[in-house]
């Protein structure tokens, strides 16, 4: 909403009783490279997966290129809260609007169905003005998984051209030409007609990356892309990611590769207990961590 390509606002995610995200907000600008660090269970993967709605946030909003991907979260919009019956009922002269809004937010007092016409109309018009179908958004947000997730029933080339052709973004010829060019860039042209089961982990992950690139994404999300790889294959994948970064791609990378973060990241987010505990340049976060969690984490991985 303020020039960020990807923005999450007030994100909460519960898995049953487990609170994984407890109010996360951050924005990523076009061309920015953000590395997300944190101990396992800190919520970093969940935050990344919320960005393209593979996980549906319990509360909060996800924005992509000024489009809203989630339902409207009324607690993020004071003017919508003000239009609610709850607000009107609780309003007393000795309480300021801001105080009451804070109270309603804190105690989760809104009840979708009983907030009156004005409230519903505002919710609806806001939704209508900004909402973008998740499939359309995902087509522009590449994602790379820890376990590669190449389609096992398709060849490498078919893996790469399936989505652009199926979504009618490109003709089969154009998609094939682009895919072969990308395979050439990573030196795997000869694997075009191989099935994923015949490839090494490093090859699979590099192909998973270029499969996403076939969609001409505006941002790439990486969910621990090297964690499942044998050590000798980590380098080739990081190398490709660096080339991608140099080419100006907007990247959000969840990883444990501190070296990569130092070299590539414009900004490092450190997550602990479901919130962003620290945010800053690699130098700020790595050389001068403020929170005890970050200090402990960094001393364990460095």
């Amino acid at each position, binding site marked *: 909403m303020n020039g960020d390509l990807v923005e999450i606002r007030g994100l909460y995610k519960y898995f049953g009783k487990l609170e994984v995200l407890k109010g996360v907000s951050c924005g990523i600008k076009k061309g920015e490279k953000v590395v997300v660090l944190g101990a396992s269970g800190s919520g970093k993967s969940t935050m990344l997966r919320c960005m393209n709605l593979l996980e549906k946030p319990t509360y909060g909003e996800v924005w992509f290129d000024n489009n809203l991907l989630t339902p409207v979260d009324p607690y993020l919009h004071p003017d919508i809260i003000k239009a609610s019956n709850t607000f009107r009922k609780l309003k007393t002269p000795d309480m300021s609007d801001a105080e009451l809004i804070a109270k309603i937010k804190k105690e989760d007092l809104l009840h979708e169905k009983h907030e009156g016409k004005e409230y519903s109309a505002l919710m609806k018009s806001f939704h209508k003005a900004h909402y973008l179908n998740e499939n359309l958004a*995902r087509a522009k947000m590449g994602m790379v998984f820890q376990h*590669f997730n190449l389609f096992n029933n398709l060849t490498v080339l078919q893996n790469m051209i399936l989505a652009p052709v199926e979504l009618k973004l490109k003709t089969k010829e154009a998609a094939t030409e682009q895919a072969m060019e990308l395979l050439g860039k990573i030196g795997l042209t000869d694997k075009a007609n191989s099935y994923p089961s015949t490839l090494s982990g490093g090859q699979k992950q590099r192909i998973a990356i270029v499969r996403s690139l076939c969609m001409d994404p505006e941002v790439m999300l990486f969910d621990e892309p090297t964690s499942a790889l044998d050590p000798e294959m980590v380098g080739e994948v990081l190398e490709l990611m660096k080339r991608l970064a140099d080419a100006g791609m907007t990247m959000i990378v969840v990883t444990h590769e501190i070296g990569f973060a130092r070299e590539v990241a414009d900004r490092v987010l450190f997550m602990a207990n479901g919130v962003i505990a620290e945010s800053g340049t690699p130098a700020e976060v790595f050389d001068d961590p403020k929170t005890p969690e970050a200090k402990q984490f960094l001393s364990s991985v460095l």
Partner: protein
Amino acid sequence: MTFAEKIAKLWELRGLFAESLGYSLLIAFGAVIIGFIIGVIMSVIRIAPKTNPVIKALDKLAVTYITVIRGTPTLVQLLILYNSVLVSFKRMPTNLLVPIIAFGINSGAYMAEIIRSGISAIDVGQMEAGRSLGLSWITTMRKIIIPQAIKTVVPTIFNEIIILVKETSVVSYIVLKVNNEQKWDLLGMAEKQGLATPACYLVFLFFAAALYLAVVMLLTALQHFIERRLKKNER
């Protein structure tokens, strides 16, 4: 009657037996097609995320269908269909559709559960990868999940087909008609000829058994051929 005479009698009737085997196979083949289509649709409904009321209702329907069909004998289903629901078919000059539909509906319930188990066995990462590329749930199902699921359930599907081929023998409980002429399935033919020539009854039954066995062995060979082909595709 000597054994040689019995065999001679059997030889005399070979055309009739071949025709009746044809009807048995036709019914089984039609039922497999219907059952497979029903199975794929039902399994997808069962596996779909229950996000809207239509899918929830369809899911309830699918569960009911599977429970009822798996919970009642095939013969009962066939007789009910023959005598009530499809009563107009009964009067039609050719009523082969009655057993085809009855066995198809029956098989669909089993196929649904088989295919559902195959879909559940596919790594969730495959669906996530499809969705992350912007493909819809149904497109990812169609292009990625179902093809892989079918591959893993080929042996179980063939198991079901084999059972179905043999189960068509209960069709002799109803009157089959083709162009207003009464026809018999393989077991029905063995029974009919056995009544006409009681001395040969046992020979006819053994012959019918041998033909069923031959068909099943062919199906098993086909299964192994398909499994090998599917494996080769991945290498």
